[in-house]
């Protein structure tokens, strides 16, 4: 059994496998299947200062080795998240390491939700700033595809929180390194990537878009090579911990990200097919380390130059 602990700056995780925001609900839904405290961290679905309906339906479409989604950040809002029994109060009853993903329509929204979480931060290990959702008209990706705006959001959140800050980057940019540097300069302690790639699918029989929002975010095994490349590029550009994600379904997939320079990984879309995938990924990483004679996860991070 190799040492699976991994360090993300001030934060130590029991293992490097987290859940990707938006694919694991608020932890509650999957705690019925297994103890979610077994995961490196649980990253909850995005929280804004306000409740949000999300997008019209249909919201998802399956594509070759992947899927498109445009859920549109449906969510309870910060008040219900902090006080509704199936949200933060539930998470506090578990031993899970909880990371709260936050979003807003403008800089003030991001700051507001971060400020509220700072006031009530018991049981919260870190914040993840979502500047990369491709499916909401205001906020989200608008901040993630303009380095000046990205910097502004991260600085505003940094002002009001002492929690470790992760910024989740969009792959829908040409030079990911520039964005990694911009958010780190603004005070982000680490970065996570990739969010989904903007895509489209058309129903040729109905002659309509398969998703009501017309475009959606592509995820699943189809995007893994893009994600590994971007994690590698980001790792060359900045010297902070990286959480890598995009199409991971196995321990071997996760190892690819670790070798490319990620200190931790997140499993997302694969959970929809099999709720137990995150646990299988943990076991798979351990099996890889044992098989190749590594004592610890730390030994393989960024090993491939």
């Amino acid at each position, binding site marked *: 059994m190799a040492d699976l602990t991994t360090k993300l700056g001030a934060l130590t995780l029991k293992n490097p496998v987290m859940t990707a925001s938006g694919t*694991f609900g608020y932890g509650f839904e999957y705690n019925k299947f297994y103890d979610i405290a077994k995961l490196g961290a649980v990253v909850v679905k995005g929280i804004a200062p306000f409740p949000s309906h999300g997008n019209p339906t249909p919201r998802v479409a399956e594509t070759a080795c992947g899927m498109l989604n445009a859920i549109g950040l449906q969510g309870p809002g910060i008040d219900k998240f902090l006080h509704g029994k199936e949200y933060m109060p539930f998470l506090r009853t578990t031993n899970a390491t909880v990371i709260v993903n936050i979003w807003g329509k403008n800089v003030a929204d991001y700051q507001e939700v971060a400020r509220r979480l700072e006031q009530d931060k018991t049981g919260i290990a870190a914040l993840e700033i979502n500047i990369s959702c491709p499916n909401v008209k205001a906020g989200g990706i608008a901040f993630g595809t303009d380095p000046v705006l990205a910097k502004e959001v991260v600085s505003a959140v940094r002002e009001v929180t002492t929690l470790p800050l992760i910024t989740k980057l969009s792959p829908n940019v040409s030079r990911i390194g520039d964005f990694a540097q911009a958010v780190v300069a603004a005070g982000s302690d680490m970065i996570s990537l990739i969010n989904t790639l903007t895509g489209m699918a058309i129903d040729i029989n109905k002659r309509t878009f398969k998703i009501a929002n017309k475009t959606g975010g592509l995820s699943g095994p189809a995007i893994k090579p893009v994600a590994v490349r971007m994690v590698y590029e980001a790792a060359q550009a900045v010297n902070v911990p990286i959480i890598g994600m995009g199409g991971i379904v196995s321990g071997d997939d996760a190892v690819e990200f670790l070798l490319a320079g990620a200190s931790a990984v997140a499993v997302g879309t694969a959970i929809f097919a099999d*709720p137990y995938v995150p646990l299988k990924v943990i076991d798979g990483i351990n099996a890889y380390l044992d098989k190749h004679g590594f004592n610890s996860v730390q030994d393989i991070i960024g090993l491939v130059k």
Partner: protein
Amino acid sequence: MQSGVIISNTRLQGDYFKVTFYTPEICATAQPGQFVHVKIANMEEHILRRPFSICNVSGSGELEVVYKVVGAGTEVLSKLPEGTLCDLLGPLGKPFQAPAADEVPVLLGGGYGAAAMFMLTEKSAQPGVVLLGARSKNDLLLIDDYKQSGFEVRLATNDGSSGIKGLITELLPPLFADYAGKKLHFYACGPMPMLLALCRILPEKGYPEAEVSLDHLMCCGVGACFACVVKIKADNPDGFRYARTCSEGPVFAAKDVYLGE
């Protein structure tokens, strides 16, 4: 998560099939109106599960699903031979409430919606009525099974090839007349336009608690992804909220379903 070995998979009629899985643990707790989320074998390039209403379960661990071939998943499923192992998540979703002892269950099934309510036949103290509607007689399912269970069967088809020519809702006025004075408990499953019409009609007729099974393109099946939502009335400025059919449904009370655009 359970394994389900296919023990039979046969064509009922036209594009409609019945598959039987051997999956005792799911059978042990399955309730009418619940579903199983199936990872269909031999389609690795398709990453998602497919949800299917549970049609029936047996004490010996056999779970029946009636399905129509409508896309890639059901196409592959229809060709899987006996002995194929699939993995199943379930039983999932909020079930129908069993009728009270003094209630006559009235089931309204549109197309293969007929299958999602079949287990209610074993949960009712007295024989009920099932109204089945479909495009044509080849799309009417489980007629003999419902008859064998003691339910009265009334039919409607769009083309008049079986039963009355017209919509399933046109079977309601004579039903109300024939069952005047009886306590009725309505259940419905079928295409969305039919269900929305019933959500309008049944509360007006004094049955706000009529239970309808709604669904929408489903993804995780357990309430995490918010893909499969439908509009449910809510006390907010918009008058609705998006509720997850997989975990808050699929069964909703007719009075709660939002009928606006």
